[in-house]
């Protein structure tokens, strides 16, 4: 069992992702925007972060950069969880924002579970 933080401004996405991963016996923590996400990271550290890009205020890439810059949080794997699937966007996620992986929306449940498990094993 692992502790996973999901950051998304869409309530339905939050509910659905939470349900899927809870069935895999993970503990789910929810944040509606970047600010909330960073606040949570100030407390108990999650084992994995699922981070949306289009967030109110600072976007997901900016949030990811901050996470990766902070020595306390930089080792937490961040998986960008986004509708931005172009090559350019993937580059922004992995190269610029230093995210560890990207899951494209819409996603297959199996793909989400598999990716999460992979990172948790590490």
């Amino acid at each position, binding site marked *: 069992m692992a502790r996973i933080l999901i950051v998304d401004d*869409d309530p*339905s*996405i939050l*509910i659905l992702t939470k349900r899927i991963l809870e069935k895999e016996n993970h503990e789910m923590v929810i944040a509606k925007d970047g600010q909330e996400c960073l606040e949570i990271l100030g407390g108990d550290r999650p084992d994995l972060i699922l981070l949306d890009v289009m967030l109110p*205020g600072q976007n997901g890439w900016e949030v990811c950069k901050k996470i990766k810059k902070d020595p306390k949080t930089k080792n937490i794997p961040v998986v960008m969880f986004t509708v931005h699937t172009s090559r350019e966007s993937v580059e922004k996620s992995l190269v610029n924002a230093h995210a560890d992986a990207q899951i494209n929306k*819409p996603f297959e*449940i199996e793909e989400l579970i598999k990716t999460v498990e992979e990172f948790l094993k590490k």
Partner: protein
Amino acid sequence: MNYKGIIKQNNIIIAGIVAIPFYWIFESVLHVVIFHDTNFIDQLLFPEPHEIWMRSFVAAFLIVLGVYIQLRVTERKKAEETLMESEGRYRSFMETLTDAVVSIDEDQAITFWNPAAESILGYMEDEVLGKSLEIVVPDKYLENHKKGVKRYLKTGKPKVVGKTVELEAKRKDGKIIPIELSLSVDKLKERYNFTGIIRNITERKEAEKEIQLKEENLRLLIDSSQDCICHISLDGKFLSMSAAGCRLNELDSKDELIGKNCTTGIVENLDEVEKGVKRALEGKTMSLQYKSVGKKGRKISWDSVITPVRDNNGEITSILRISRDITDKKFAEKKLKKAHEELKSLDTLKSDIIANVSHELRTPITIISASLDLIKNEEDKKERRELIIMAKDALNRQNRIVSDLIAATEMKLGNMDIKVSSFPINDLINLSVLDFETRGSNLKAKIVIQLEEDLPMIMGDFDQLKHAIQNLLNNAIKFNKGNEDVLIEAKKKKSIIEVCVTDKGIGMSPKHIKKIFDPLYQADSSAGRSYEGTGMGLAIVFKIIEAQGGKIWAESEEGRGSKFYFTLPTDNKGASRRG
């Protein structure tokens, strides 16, 4: 000189000498008759000494007389011959002269009329001698001619005399011909004699006319050109300018710039023009563009060619500058470029919209897809119901995006159909909110409606206005913070209704407010897009309200929330009614 010649030349002297023996015989006979004392032979052969002296004296006298007479005769003959010769020469001169020579006396009677006068004026010599000169003076000159002669006779002061003037003469056939007249006067025996040399200048006049016509044609040709054609001297001064040039340069007269430097008025690329003139002096032609300012301040763009003008020997004598006014063309080019830029940016915007919309559609698709996957294995009825509602919500959202897209496309094409009807504003607001709430089951905030009492009926397209209100509500909720209420109000203000949607959300900076109604402002990458939505919502609201004759504006404070106002015209004819 032979013998006959000698006789012919000196025949009188010879006659004198020949007369001596006759006289001798005559004297002998006379002596015999008078004196009867001598015989004839003695008298003839042996006269007395005094007879010999007498006869010798008479013989000498006869010889001297012959010589004298001979000399006189020869002299006269010589003078006559010289006169004849000179007269013959004069006559042949007069006959071969191509200019008419006509003399008149003080009474204007013609005294001389040479053959050229016959051919130029048509009258024969014997026809005109003694007649008045007035027969060859055209009517319009008659008065002046008479006055002139009178004046000269009276004052002796010449006006035409001694000069060459151009006049006209009337021929025998009545034809008026141009002539050149040189008039001289001489005084013989206290009487004036006027002699005019008349030259027929019909051909010269025609040639002059032809040259004039050619020059006129050239001028017309230059002046009918729409270009500014400038003739420039070797030292760079204007010699002439075409009519179009004067017009384009807003000049009052053609001579205004003549003598001035050919760079007068040029404000851009002056050095190019100077270079063009220099090149022309070197025999080269140069094309260039420059700008000048007209006399009244019009800024003119020119496309110009500067080229040398050469004479028949190939020497450069002046410079020609032909400039075409391309101001309008430049303006059109600029406009076209701008239109092209606009089109390009619109195209970029369009690409942005497509990218945006496809991203936007992915979120509801994600929800629908995940919900359906979960439903597949979900046993619990309640859970299944929740998932179905969630999927339905996502579908509604998708529907809204598609509606926006269709609305935006229709507006772009400019054929937004307005179905105007009269209805209570209360109905519109209540229905819009109700519909919005049922579509979005998981609203983050509550919508509060506040309507003034006795609101009048309004005019507009109900469905479009509902779309606009829902877009505003959607925005208000999207940018709301926490669980603050979203407020929608309606008030009557004179002949209009003012509707206001208030949220306590993140608000906007003044810089953003200016642009929020621009189509797809959010889609603009420079705006730092970080919110969901196609970015078309407010632009659509703007267009809808404008189409109903209303106004829309926003007030906002960063971090504290926004207020979106719009007005709608009331239906004056419809009775007010409570919704």
